[in-house]
């Protein structure tokens, strides 16, 4: 009895010490989730930025609310959290090609509204001066388009160029096998 009590007291003390000594700072799960999210800070998920959504996922929110991340992000989240893959919730938007905001500079009146809306400080300008977008910093979140009173911001989808071009996986159609003659009529039969 005495031995049991003393053992319990000893382990209790060790555990208590460890809890204080090796306490983890912040929320490691939310950090890992935040690493996967695309950081567009667009708020389409209904949370004010990627970090809050990461926190919400860690607290049990659905993983399919991020349109800019698309399927690959959902897949990565499913792998990380060991949950089932769920298709993107269309309520929050569709997966689109990444776009970059472009300000038609001669139409800009210098109201600074878009500067205030930009979550990553990617718009440059001052009151009554023309504004412009720092292309390399723009995340394509669309948040600047709505506040513009003269509607001079366009979201231009990124064109594929010689620098961004890459080989694609082989066309799955070319892998369809015509082993016997009836295979070529398979499409009509189906």
């Amino acid at each position, binding site marked *: 009895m005495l031995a049991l009590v003393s053992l319990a007291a000893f382990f209790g003390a060790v555990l208590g010490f460890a809890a204080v000594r090796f306490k983890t700072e912040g929320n490691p799960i939310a950090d890992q989730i*935040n690493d996967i*999210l*695309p*950081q*567009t*800070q667009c708020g389409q998920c209904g949370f004010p*930025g*990627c*970090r809050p959504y990461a926190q919400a996922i860690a607290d049990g929110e659905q993983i399919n609310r991020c349109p800019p991340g698309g399927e690959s992000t959902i897949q990565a989240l499913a792998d990380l959290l060991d949950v089932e893959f769920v298709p993107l919730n269309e309520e929050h938007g569709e997966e689109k090609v990444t776009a970059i905001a472009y300000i038609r500079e001669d139409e800009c009146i210098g109201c600074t509204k878009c500067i205030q809306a930009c*979550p*990553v*400080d*990617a718009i440059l300008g001052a009151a009554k001066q023309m504004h412009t977008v720092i292309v390399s*910093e723009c*995340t394509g979140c669309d948040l600047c388009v709505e506040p513009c009173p003269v509607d001079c911001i366009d979201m231009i989808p990124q064109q*594929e*160029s*010689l620098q961004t*071009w*890459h*080989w*694609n*996986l*082989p066309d799955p159609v*070319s*892998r*369809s*096998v*015509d*082993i016997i003659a009836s295979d070529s009529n398979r499409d009509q039969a189906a």
Partner: protein
Amino acid sequence: MRKIFDFHGGIHPPENKHQSVARAIAQAGIPTQLVIPVSQHIGAPAQPVVEEGDRVLGGQLIAAAKGFVSVPSHAPTSGTILAIEERMIAHPSGFAALCVVIETDGRDEWIELSGVDDYTKLEPGALINLIREAGIAGMGGAGFPSAVKLSIKPEIQIETLIINGTECEPYITADDILMRERPEQIIEGVKILRQIIQPRETVIGVEDNKPEGLAALRRAAEGSGIEVVEFPTKYPSGGEKQLIEILTGKQVPSGGLPADVGVVCQNVGTAVAIRAAVVEGRPLVSRITTLTGEALAQPQNYEVLIGTSMNHLLQLAGYDSTRNQRLIMGGPMMGFTVPDSHVPVVKTTNCILAPTVEEVPAPPPAQACIRCGMCAEVCPASLLPQQMFWFSQGKEFEKLEQHNLFDCIECGACSYACPSNIPLVQYYRASKAEIIQLRSDHEKSEQSRTRFEAREERLDREEAEKEAKRAARKKAAEARAKLAADGEGTEDPIQAAIDRAKAKKAAQQAGGKDSEVNELEKLQQVVATTRKRLDTATTKLTAAQAEGSDLVVPLQTGVDKTQAKLDIAVKALTEYQANEPKTDATENIEAEVDPAKLAIEKAMAARNALAALSPEDKAAQQLDKLEQRLAKAKARHAESVAVGEEEKIVIALEATVSRLEDKISAAREATSSQETT
């Protein structure tokens, strides 16, 4: 005899080299138009330095290197710049890229070339510079800037310089014909490379399917200390890492460079280009290109100006377009289909293959992987191709990287060996590109996250500052309200001022520096002594004047001089005090120079005086002051008008004057009303 090693895997595809090597190198001539892409190499595209309509001479710089890993381009012949615009280039994507278009004049006038007489006297750095300026990029097909490859860190000792004459791709004979016809040029280029790198040994590696080239090279290399090594033919022994293993037995580590195992590799074509650059001063404007394939009547090697349309070459070689379905740049193993026959030849175009449909048939449909393991047997990089194939299909990028996908040299041996005709290399290329894309995306998202967090922090800080200011204002307003409620003052403003001054003084004393105090003391002493001397001098002068002595004049000068000195000393003291207001309050200072005390006394006196005065006098005094200010303001205004100052200032001054006038009239009314009551 040198020991020859073997590398893992490899294949023996049918060679088809004899067709094009039967004829000597022919000149392709000067076409009417040359299209020179600014990006013909790995690295940053060059920057065009000519403009539309400019006349250029052969060898003239038309696009300058932009950054370290970049290569300049030169005009291959004389002519006029027709345009600088996007043109279709030889790239698997079929995209257009910026090109300089030259309309040739056929006269082939050149700039004056100045070669180096004796390159053995030049430093490696100077030689590398010549190579960089000549625009040389790896001629074997990859197009890596040669100058960058040769700039090896000085702490690395290179054991072996390997010259690659392997040319293991079927069909291509550009290097073979070069070795047969111009072995002396190759050997001289190799000597220059040896001069730059200072290796322990220099080896030229050639496959045993080129006996004529081997013999010619051996003859030319006699007595030079350069070893020409023959080894069995196997694809892809011309791969850099494979050739290093064959000749030295060393394996380049995964993700490493040949320099890590003390080896530098260069192509024979590059050696010839380097010789031309150093010995003749001639930039890289032409190359040897193999034209072959059954759709050509006369397969042959041509010396081609960079920028020549592939179609021009095909016509020379007797091209039959009816027999050909697709044009391939490079060999059948690693080459790619070009989008159009009008794309230009670039620095890396070693072969243009125009096969008939029977010769290179369209790839048969891929069938399921049967896990036979043939691909792993032939892989020269000792990878597991079928495993990577499954991971590529499932987009399991992490596992692909764990299986060393990035060590794949895309030689195509696995696809060649695959009995199910699976286009394996295409899977690896796509997966590599996707992984690189993901990496850059992740980098960008990290960047956006830091920017977002920085912005949040800034907004929070601004909000906190605003909040603090609001709180301070609220407190001040409350204090004022309380003061007003308490009536005419428990708190005396002058007393408060005295307290403030005292607090300030105490703070300054605490922080005052000894050296400053000393400086001040010194200045004050100087002033005091000078003043004393002036006093005595003046007394003497008056005495002398009274006596009518002869000494009056010298004494007068003496007094003047002392007076001047005193002025300077006083000025220095005041300046010092003005610059160093801190020291004003130190203990050692006399009462007169303490402005805080002075101000306090003045304020006290003024208050006492004010208190002593009757209300009428007070009003009168106020009126006096106002009138004085008005006079001053008027004077200032007149002055500004006279000087012609800015309109704004004049208007502001006018406003001041009128305001003061209003105030005076109000004060007058008040006095008169007081008098009446």
